[in-house]
């Protein structure tokens, strides 16, 4: 890795790199989120999102990589499976060579990779994490002043989210553009630019509903065991967030210059075929981007396609997942042609997503410039369920805190370094992330401004 010094890496270097990775800009409560930021146009809120796609990218053991750029550092070249990122290449950093480390735990196929990236812990079994996903920590840090603390979407139509506070209960995602639209712009939506804003008395009535619920908290928690307490804690956390949501609705929303309330989308097609998934993904990205511009949420999670992805090319009887496992490696090309083609199509979803965010002008730049999106997958080379070289990407300028447009190459370091980097760029109060061999307090300072 190149030797680069800046204020942050200096600080870390001086202290021996041990547990001092606390993000300098810290929580957004220190930032000006009360509207003054909008007035002088210098400090727009920073948003964070995770974007997951299933089945990794192609990097065959014979050396036929289809995604890892040759050039390291800034100005990396666009590779075939990253082609969809070309228009926003300078706003995206590519991380190659990072791996999930099991520490003796089995490789839980199509699960260990993203569980490690999000929770920092190699999971014991499929379907649950052994800790919370870090997006919830970021949501706690930056999501309290928007109506929704975070929004989950799953354009493939499977009700799937990897965002969890307990490791067991995962968020409920919106699975169609219409349901996403209803959630954000339906009942309870307040146009921040409405000059005739008045508090809605209904909101106060709603508040009294919740107060009756919280009244009973103590009685309910009095004699429960540890596991049940976790569940009830999560429930009451949800109630608190709901209260916060209602409280915000009674305050005059700050004007958002970039906010243009979108029209209602049409009914989406329901299919796992890649063209339909990408179409829905794009429509949902558009709605979500505007939701962030309208300060309805600052955090999101998108599961484009699940781990063992069922997506396919319309009319083809074989799904992507099957191709990755049983398609022969073409001797001349050195890779699996159909799998690679599908990987590129799946990545088109990420390209589309970023393009929608980049299309929203905000301040001197775009919404993407004020956001950080971590793109990642469940696996490296899918044919062998590899946990090595899991593709990871950080997209967006994070309000100037991400030195984007670089290719960071690692020789098998833990994926949690990238996760930690994302958390620190966004300013979550996290100095260390992960357990066991994946424990790290070293963010990737090259990409941190």
């Amino acid at each position: 890795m190149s030797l680069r010094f800046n204020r942050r890496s200096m600080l870390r270097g001086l202290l021996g790199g041990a547990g001092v990775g606390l993000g300098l800009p810290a929580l957004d409560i220190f930032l000006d989120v009360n509207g003054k930021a909008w007035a002088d146009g210098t400090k727009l809120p920073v948003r964070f999102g995770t974007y997951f796609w299933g089945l990794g990218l192609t990097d065959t053991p014979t050396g036929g990589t289809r995604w890892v750029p040759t050039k390291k550092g800034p100005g990396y070249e666009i590779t075939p499976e990253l082609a969809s990122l070309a228009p926003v290449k300078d706003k995206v950093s590519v991380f190659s060579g990072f791996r999930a480390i099991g520490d003796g735990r089995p490789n839980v196929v199509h699960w260990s990779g993203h569980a490690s990236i999000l929770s920092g812990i190699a999971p014991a079994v499929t379907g649950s994490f052994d800790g919370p996903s870090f997006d919830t920590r970021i949501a706690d840090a930056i999501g309290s002043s928007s109506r929704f603390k975070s929004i989950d979407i799953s354009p493939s139509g499977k009700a799937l989210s990897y965002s969890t506070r307990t490791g067991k209960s995962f968020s409920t995602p919106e699975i169609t553009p219409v349901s996403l639209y209803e959630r954000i712009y339906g009942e309870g939506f307040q146009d921040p630019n409405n000059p005739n804003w008045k508090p809605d008395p209904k909101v106060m009535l709603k508040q009294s509903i919740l107060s009756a619920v919280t009244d009973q908290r103590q009685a309910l928690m009095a004699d429960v065991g540890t596991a049940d307490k976790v569940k009830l804690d999560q429930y009451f956390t949800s109630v608190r967030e709901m209260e916060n949501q209602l409280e915000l609705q009674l305050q005059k929303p700050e004007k958002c210059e970039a906010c243009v309330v979108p029209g209602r989308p049409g009914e989406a097609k329901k299919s796992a075929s890649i063209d339909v998934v990408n179409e829905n993904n794009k429509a949902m990205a558009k709605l979500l981007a505007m939701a962030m511009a309208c300060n309805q949420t600052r955090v999101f999670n998108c599961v484009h396609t699940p781990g063992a992805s069922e997506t396919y090319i319309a009319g083809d009887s074989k799904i992507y997942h099957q191709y990755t496992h049983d398609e022969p490696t073409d001797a001349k090309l050195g890779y699996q042609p159909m799998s690679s083609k599908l990987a590129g199509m799946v990545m088109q979803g990420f390209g589309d997503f970023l393009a929608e965010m980049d299309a929203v002008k905000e301040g001197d730049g775009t919404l993407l410039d004020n956001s950080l999106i971590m793109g990642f997958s469940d696996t490296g080379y899918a044919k062998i369920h590899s946990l090595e070289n899991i593709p990871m990407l950080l997209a967006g300028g994070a309000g100037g805190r991400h030195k984007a447009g670089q290719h960071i190459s690692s020789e098998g370091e833990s994926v949690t370094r990238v996760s930690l980097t994302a958390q620190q760029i966004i300013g979550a109060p996290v100095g260390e992330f992960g357990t066991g061999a994946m424990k790290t307090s070293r963010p990737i300072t090259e990409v941190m401004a």
Partner: protein
Amino acid sequence: MLRRETGDGQFCPGSEDLRRFRAFTCAGAASLALAGATLFAGGLGDPALAKTPKAKPPATVTTAVRRITESQYRHTIADIFGPDIKVNARFEPERRQDGLLAIGSTDLSVTTSGLEQYFALGGSISEQVMDPKSRDTQIGCKPADPGKPDAKCAREFISTVGQKLFRRPLTEGEISARLTTAERGATLAHDFYSGLQLSLTSLLLAPEFLFRTETAEPDPASPGQYRLDAYSKATRLSFLFWDTAPDAELLAAATSGDLQTPAGLNKQVARLAASPRLDDGVRAYFTDMLQFDQFESLNKDAATYPKFSQAVADSAREQTLKTLVDLLIDRKGDYRDIFTSNETFINRYLASIYKVPFASSQEWTRYTFPQSSERSGILTQVTFLSLFSHPGRSSPTRRGIKLHEIFTCQPTPDPPANVDFSKVQAIQNGTVRTRLIDHMTNEGCSICHQSSDPPGLTLEHFDGLGQLRTTENGLPIDVSADIDGVKFSGAQGLGKFMHDDPNVPACLVKQVYGYSIGRAAGYRDQSYIARETEAFAKSGYQVPALLTAMATSPEFFAVKIPAGVKVASQSDTPTSPTR
């Protein structure tokens, strides 16, 4: 911050109230500010009384907190407010563990997005309940002045409906919290019903409704031991037999203590089992066991299977459930016959998939599959065949895995991550059998594929949607199998094979038990499962008999004190099942 309840049921404000009070005044709602001020005046509680008194002795322990399922929610609402109430929401995803959502749901909570859904849904239900056209019947009393709060009528409604929703009588604290809400709302809106609507929404949003909390109490018969309290027992019974909250009679049996006596328990179980509502319980159980929740996200490629639609998926689900209810309840049939019976029901959509004429003027009609259809039993219905296939093709492996997992409780481990896939190559020609041969011979793959693929291959005369076919890529499909020396052929052969597999009834017993108690039956439950399986066999494998036998056995109500609970009357040792 919590608000503390004082002895007389009024509240003194914590910071939460301050926050809310501020919000009210800043919004300029003068009347509400007044209401807030009144609340403040009520204040100054005695800290000694801070803990809300419960209607149960302090030695009780909460032994389980299980989120109710979507169908339990729906059934409960329909029971209390009638079938016309629309329940229109997307429920939080459930989680399958040890083969059942009922077991996985014990780990689940309500996330923020989930609570939003419950909040909106609760609001919509209570709005429908308070509809001026029907509210008099729904509420059962009338306020003295509809423009004002009415504590008497509100209390009556809250405690009656609350008891049905919480599956036990409400504590005074629970009632008075809702009375406060009702009063606040009625004052603000100058409408009694608006206030009551808010109270009802808060009941529908309450953790006491959304979670089944099971409570253990000291067992008077065995000092030092715990037993499930009567309301928790009533709830277990009711959800198993009817998939809904206990009805008035069952709650009364809990209140009177009858349910804690063998005679009282037998009487209630017999009543539950004899009711036509047993259909709901059996449907709910098999919906879970057969993994029908996966229909929500089932996709088929439109070019490959143009006949597939949501209507087909819904019909298929209904077909299997109708078949099961008919065989297992109406005809008191042998459970093992679900694999061999040709008796079923079809509608217009399914007739098209099964390629049979549909002449009935009814929506559904009874149908017997002829021998030539190659169909027999539920494995040959569209449900199993389409659910465990890919979007554009069948999958013998998935079908085989699901067959073992669902019906014989033998889950297949995940494929080894580091297996050498280099020899596993796609073959474009031939049938799927030739393509799978390699899995079955490849070391690392073989141990599982040798178990999953052979039964799956016998179903290959049915494509990914469940339509009959006999060739693939122009070649005849070989549907023969040799499993543990038993040779058979085709789906009908597989049905017979499953019918005779002793693991099948044992698995049902195990899963019904896990479904009821909310955890997988483990090593310590083995002898119980074996005894119940024997009794099941003696009954001629009748499912209602199985449910009755289990629900009247002490193990059904066994108590396990969860980790992290200090038990007042004894040390930390968990109690064994009460007998």
